[in-house]
């Protein structure tokens, strides 16, 4: 294969990757894929790939002396291990198919695999405990806003990890709180049919390593009709009963309303 054609094929593969990264960043969809720290890196990567691909595409037909003495032999600064057409196909087809298939979220089955219905954490999660707010009621009240009807606004993550922190349980137990997340059917210990489950996804780097952060919603009667997997704001009284041998974070719901999708998946709100 002529070197010029090989350069063009390689440039096209690189430009497609660049376009994919830049499109997801520019459209804002990147927030569904990468944690905040990694998003600027993805942007820089997309720009860098675009520069490299376009540079090589525009100079594909130029003669370039690498400056080495190769003694007239053909050298391999550009010789690859693989047929360039195969390389182009392997680099672009999975990306193109994934772009076509993705819905920016996991299916219900994979959410279940990523901890949606797992037991709440035991009291041995010191890393997460260390990032929670200080443990006095005054400081909790001063670091959380109060709604107009008197509920303290909490992130779902704080409520979830409180099951692993007895001191925080003591403060939050019986407290009237409001939080938000996505609502789904409750499949565990819900014989009476009065429960739903509220969750958000927590990612450390990318969504592939994300875990579901769920709590139980107890309505006391038949739950209201809310869109499955839709975003809701719920308010009620927080409890931490022992069920099935482990502590559960259960919110006894006073009100639940459909909510706008948050612009960012921010899990540590404060």
């Amino acid at each position, binding site marked *: 294969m002529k070197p010029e054609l090989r*350069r063009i094929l*390689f440039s096209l593969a690189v430009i497609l*990757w660049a376009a*994919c*990264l830049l499109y*997801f960043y520019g459209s804002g969809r*990147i927030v569904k*894929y*990468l944690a905040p720290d*990694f998003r600027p*890196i*993805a942007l*820089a*990567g*997309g720009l*860098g*790939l675009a520069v*490299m*691909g376009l*540079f*090589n595409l525009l100079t594909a037909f*130029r003669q*370039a*002396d*690498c*400056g*080495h*003495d190769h003694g007239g032999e053909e050298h391999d*600064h550009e010789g*690859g291990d*693989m047929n*360039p057409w195969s*390389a182009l196909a*392997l*680099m672009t087809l*999975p*990306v193109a198919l*994934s*772009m*076509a*298939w*993705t*819905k*920016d979220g*996991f*299916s*219900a*089955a994979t959410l279940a*695999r990523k901890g949606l219905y797992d037991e709440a954490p035991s009291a*041995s*999660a*010191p*890393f997460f405990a*260390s990032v929670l707010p200080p443990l006095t009621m005054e400081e909790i009240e001063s670091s959380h806003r109060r709604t107009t009807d008197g509920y303290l606004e909490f992130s779902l993550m704080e409520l979830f990890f409180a099951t692993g922190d007895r001191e925080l349980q003591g403060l939050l137990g019986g407290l009237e709180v409001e939080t938000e997340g996505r609502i789904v059917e409750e499949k565990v210990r819900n014989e009476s049919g009065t429960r739903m489950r509220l969750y958000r996804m927590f990612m450390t*780097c*990318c*969504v*592939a*390593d994300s*875990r579901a952060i769920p709590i139980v919603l107890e309505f006391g009667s038949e739950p209201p009709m809310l869109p499955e997997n839709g975003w809701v704001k719920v308010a009620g009284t927080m409890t931490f009963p022992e069920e099935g041998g482990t502590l559960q974070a259960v919110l006894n719901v006073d009100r639940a309303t459909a909510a706008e999708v948050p612009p960012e998946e921010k899990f540590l709100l404060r």
Partner: protein
Amino acid sequence: MNGDAQQDFALAFLSILFEGAPFILLGTLISGFIDIYLPKGAMDRFLPKNNTLAVMTAGLLGAIFPVCECAVVPVIRRLVGKGLPMSCALTYMLAAPIVNPITALSTWKAFQGQAPWMMTGGRMLLGYLVAVGVGLVVARISLRKVLKQSLLEKIESAADKENEECGGCCGHDHSHDHDHGHSHEHHDHGKNDDDGRLIAAMRSAQKDFVDVGVYFTIGVAITALFNTGIAPGAMWLDGLAGNPVAAPAALMALAFILSLCSTSDAFIAATLAKFTWGAKLAFLVFGPMLDVKLIFLYQTVLKRKFIVALGVSLFVVIWLASMAAQAWLIEM
């Protein structure tokens, strides 16, 4: 695949690709510019002449040139082509993703409240010792058993040419003293030459990016398939958490499948609350040295048989070392 499986695969695939692609680009840009601008043998000047000391020094180079495991493969591929001894290159490749300040910081941060200094120090130390051990062993093995044929031919061809050019000129070894006919320092590269070299460097970087990108894509696709179907594995893992012998092996298997970046894997390890300190140490040392995507990336440099032997050796050594570390910790 049904619709749900396609959706899950696509999400996991793209997210890992987005996370890793910038780091591969960084590595291949460095490798491309090394290819064109770095005089052959230049790396040797940074390393002691003594083989053992050179390997030990190579294990610390990650502190100066911090790269993750994705970025390090194209870099060492070029460095080997430039004459860096394979034992040093392999030591750098295995150690750099662990023995570097970014990984140290992320490990320390992730393990707050769980003896962060001990985990960070233990990870750096074990990673360094294992990498140096591999380097010292490889120093005694023929390159033919280690290097991929195409890379080996390139090195041998360069060596033959070097011998022809240097042979008989003065009868002693110039390998550390001059640049074997490249003459970068002795003639004037005008602006056109500079442009030409920039273009050549960018082409070389792009070629490396595509070479690595192909294998990375395959590795990420396999990782995404495992990642989205991990539930049975998770239940199996939980059952092994209390077993002091099986737990480190199980977490090493998990690290192999998940193929996490060394700069971020500590955040996953820190959440594995049921597992012992030693098992987490095994996860954090083995993962950056061998995982699904690295199997594919290593094939751009190493022979398949050698990769298998390396993988088995790493698994056994890190497994035993992590159990010994755990036993020592209990005794304390």
